[in-house]
């Protein structure tokens, strides 16, 4: 499975993402700069975390309007898997590829710690290596991860199984509605999540709970 990592000014988790994808798939991902309108043939496109365009206007708002996003939209419509982590999630909602919005944390504080994630839907291309209801560890690091959607949208995504990850009870770090930590589109090929699974994939990280996500998306046997 081939993958690509998108790079934009202000994203700073791209190296971690490249390292995780390389270690798990055995192949280095190609990198795609924001102005590119042609993305090579890959099975998975990842938008990593960071602070694209300094979080100006709204987190992810400027990045979501860059040329590369049109190319990503076209690929997503063809069924290519797209994963957005942290700022990548914010970019995907701003681009309209995922429902809802991500607002300032309810505490108004930047949170950087480990939380527990419940795998709500384990029948997705991103979560097959996990089991439904499994609770995994994951680092979070963000200021604007407070998931919001109007009542109707919330009902739809809950009913469709589009809520893929929830903060396990008592660990919601940002005030997200329904403890939502990760959401996918109705088609199931675009996933956005605030936690950083790429930062918990090997013993040196103190655990490998995040590995299953990449193993699922890259279709390699989970370690």
């Amino acid at each position, binding site marked *: 499975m081939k993958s690509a990592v998108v790079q934009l000014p202000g994203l700073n988790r791209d190296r971690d993402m490249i390292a995780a994808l390389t270690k798990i798939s055995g192949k280095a991902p190609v990198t795609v700069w924001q102005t590119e309108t042609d993305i090579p043939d890959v099975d998975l496109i990842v938008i990593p975390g960071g602070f694209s365009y300094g979080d100006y206007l*709204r987190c992810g708002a400027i990045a979501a309007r860059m040329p590369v996003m049109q190319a990503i939209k076209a690929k997503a419509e063809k069924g290519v898997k797209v994963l957005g982590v942290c700022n990548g999630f914010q970019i995907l*909602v*701003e681009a309209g590829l995922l429902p*809802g*919005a991500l*607002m*300032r944390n*309810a505490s108004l504080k930047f949170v950087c710690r480990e939380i527990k994630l419940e795998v709500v839907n384990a029948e997705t291309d991103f979560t097959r290596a996990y089991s439904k209801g499994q609770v995994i560890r994951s680092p979070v690091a963000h200021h604007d991860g407070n998931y*919001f*959607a109007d009542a109707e949208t919330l009902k739809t995504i809950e009913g469709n199984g589009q809520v893929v990850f929830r903060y396990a009870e008592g660990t919601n770090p940002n005030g997200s509605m329904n403890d939502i930590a990760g959401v996918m589109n109705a088609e199931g090929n675009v996933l956005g999540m605030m936690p950083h699974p790429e930062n918990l994939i090997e013993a040196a990280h103190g655990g490998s709970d995040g590995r299953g996500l990449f193993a699922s998306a890259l279709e390699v046997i989970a370690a």
Partner: protein
Amino acid sequence: MIKARVTVTLKNGVLDPQGKAIEGALGALGFDGIGQVRQGKVFDLQIESADKAKAEEDLKAMCEKLLANTVIENYSISFA
């Protein structure tokens, strides 16, 4: 030249933690009787045109496409 102001505010029902914090700080300064504070954004734009109707149409498109996130925000346009 046309001078326009776009005001972006959070929709009713959308939680505004920043507004809440400001509300608390105003209370701490001794300002009593504040029901609610909601924080928004203001954009002042200069448009090189004399066609106000066209400008208004363009501004609306700018709000829909970038200046506001209509999932959580409302916008209004006024002219100086």
